[in-house]
């Protein structure tokens, strides 16, 4: 356990204490889904400590999300429009489709006209207190921008002039988002690396803290998926992927890809997927 984990634990405790006293969060949260799979909002629902109920009850006024909001059609669009005049944090999942002036991705019909994801992002992005790119697609285009990138997808930083906090991962772990949000609400901007990723989550490579690192050091390598050895020779991207999966794990700390005896596929690293493939290779090195 290093300092960052301890910091995160402390932070979570403080969030629980401070936010549970104040039952009236005063900042709004808008969560846009753009060109992607909507897997990050599902991942957010998988959060356990704190969970989604805590998030919307004690931390922030969750105003807008296509998957979860009760309103539909114009009523939904009016909520999006009215939030601009309020203090809000913008979370975005999915890449921005730039082909055809953004018309490859329309997220609703506003004032009688189609609202492109590109226009919605520009409308909301510059005025938000903070902007968080949630997941690989929003951070750098991800799978949505994989070659030959039919919809000309880019990460949201490419279309905004302001700073965007990047939380790459496919999907984004709920703790990375909620922890970042908690820091923003309590202390302002967290320490970011040169790629604008919060250092508290993205400081170390998977390889550095992998539970199978000693097997790598001893040269015990898996020959196939399911083997107990180090996954390096099957194409593991742990050595180049900076994220805390080995210590945080997934789904209530139940498991993680290497725990399932499979290689890390580098989903939290910039360049995923094109620069991380092949994901599985039986003949990388003999």
């Amino acid at each position, binding site marked *: 356990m290093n300092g960052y984990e301890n910091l995160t634990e402390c932070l979570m405790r403080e969030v629980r204490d401070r936010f549970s006293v104040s039952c009236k969060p005063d900042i709004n949260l808008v969560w846009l889904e753009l060109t992607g*799979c909507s897997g990050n909002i599902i991942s957010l629902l998988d959060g356990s400590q704190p969970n*989604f109920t805590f998030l*919307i009850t004690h931390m922030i006024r969750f105003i807008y999300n296509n*998957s979860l909001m009760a309103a539909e059609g114009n009523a939904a669009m009016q909520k999006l429009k009215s939030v601009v005049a309020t203090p809000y944090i913008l979370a975005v999942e999915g890449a921005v489709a730039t082909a055809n002036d953004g018309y490859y991705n329309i997220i609703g019909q506003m004032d009688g006209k*189609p609202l492109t994801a590109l226009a919605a992002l520009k409308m909301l992005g510059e005025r938000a207190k903070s902007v968080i790119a949630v997941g690989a697609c929003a951070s750098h285009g991800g799978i949505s921008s994989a070659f030959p990138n039919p919809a000309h997808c880019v990460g949201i930083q490419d279309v905004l002039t302001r700073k965007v906090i990047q939380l790459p991962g496919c999907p984004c772990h709920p703790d990375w988002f909620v922890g970042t949000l908690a820091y923003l609400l309590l202390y302002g901007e967290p320490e970011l690396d040169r790629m604008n990723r919060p250092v508290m989550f993205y400081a170390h490579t998977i390889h550095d803290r992998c539970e199978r690192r000693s097997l790598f050091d001893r040269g015990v390598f898996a020959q196939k998926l399911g083997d107990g050895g180090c996954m390096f020779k099957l194409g593991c991207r742990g050595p180049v992927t900076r994220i805390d999966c080995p210590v945080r794990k997934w789904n209530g700390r139940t498991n993680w890809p290497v725990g399932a005896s499979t290689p890390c596929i580098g989903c939290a690293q910039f360049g995923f997927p094109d620069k991380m493939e092949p*994901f599985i290779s*039986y003949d990388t090195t003999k």
Partner: protein
Amino acid sequence: MEHILINPLTRISGFLQIEATINNGVIEDARNSGFLFRGFEKILLNRSPFDSVYFTQRICGICSAAHSMASSLALEDALSIIPSEQGKILRDIVHGCEFLQNHIRHFYQYTVPDYVRLPEKFPLFDTVGNDFRLSPEQTEAISNHYFDSLKVGMQTHEMLAVLGGKAPHNHGIFIGGVTVRPTTDNVIHMKSLLSVIRDFVDNKMVSDMGVIANAYQDYFHLGGGCGNLLSYGCFQGYDSLGTLYLQPCIMTDGVKQPFDARNITESIDYAWYSGKDSYEPFETVSEPDMQKQKAYSWIKAPRYLGKPFEVGPLARQILCGCYENHVSAMDRIVARVYETHKIIEILTVLLDQVVPGVETQNRYELPLRAKGMGLIDTTRGALGHWMKINEGKIAFYQIITPSVWNFSTRDGQTQGPSELSLIGTPIHDTYNPVEIGRILRSFDPCVSCATHVLCPGNETKVYQVVS
């Protein structure tokens, strides 16, 4: 004559626009424009065939394990690999967890807000809907269960991750079965979670569904079917257990028949694609073409023997004889809840079969040339992957998802199931047409990967759904 336009239809996975024409208070015509085109079939070309298992999961964040199933099956077909009984069982356990996750979240997070006024203190639940019929006590109980379901939904994914590594986008499902060699504590971990999930489903979800179905009985007469039901089968074909759920089959006009994959075709008459009008899945992947005048959607039109077919939990429940042959919006909701219970029963049986320590993986060799088909019924219905391999790379990939069946565009003869389900629906308030969303959500549409394109030259005068 009035037009209604709803965009976005929220509480679905992805984006969908609905345009409906109302005549004398009844829907006369409807067009559902959904967009599954992210170009995945194009993006997959020239990648390693093995990568398709993890890659195609990124099509959908709520039903990702489904794609890992179809992709693994297609690879097994191409590589002539027959998974062991244990491999099948372990993989189906992971897939079953996704059914529970999807159905619980679809019922509480996506469906309940249509029928129950959730606490107004949460801005997420603001609504202009005014057709809420439950008593204050019923409303409070189901609202509480909405929040309880968030924890249970999380536990379904926790259960999935035991053998799957993580969720969404698992690593465990692969050719031959799963990657994890299950231990006794894995099994007891899953059994323990399953008992908590069972308690919630049997004691809360089923009765909540009953309360809603009782208060909204008119929805048993709205959102009817196209007369045709189809399933590729799931939780079946075990050597030792036989069929736990359903073998591949179809039903037309009440008559059940065996399924034959050679009868599947897909057409693109009214979708933004150019190429051959109608083709078999292995034949061609159409090119996107946004200039096509009569097109209005990215969703193609899959057909079986030339006809549209409804797929999903209700289709399965009717086909397996567990449910009366009656198709409506409320029947879909009821069948999905019943199926949740059924999947828990199946998982209970499967977990008892697991042999601790069993290994299901090998080093796999890619053939120079091969093709494979992976058909499987998943949470939302029939999912198919068709893959060709050439010189160790993916040379062709065709995907037909369940929502493409249900939300298919029209062809020369007929409309798809979801459009047909809207036609004839009385709309009480054209400024607040809650009927449309309720009917369409009953299909559990997954229109992820929304790439919404305007149809040029197709401007219509529309009333928006106003607040």
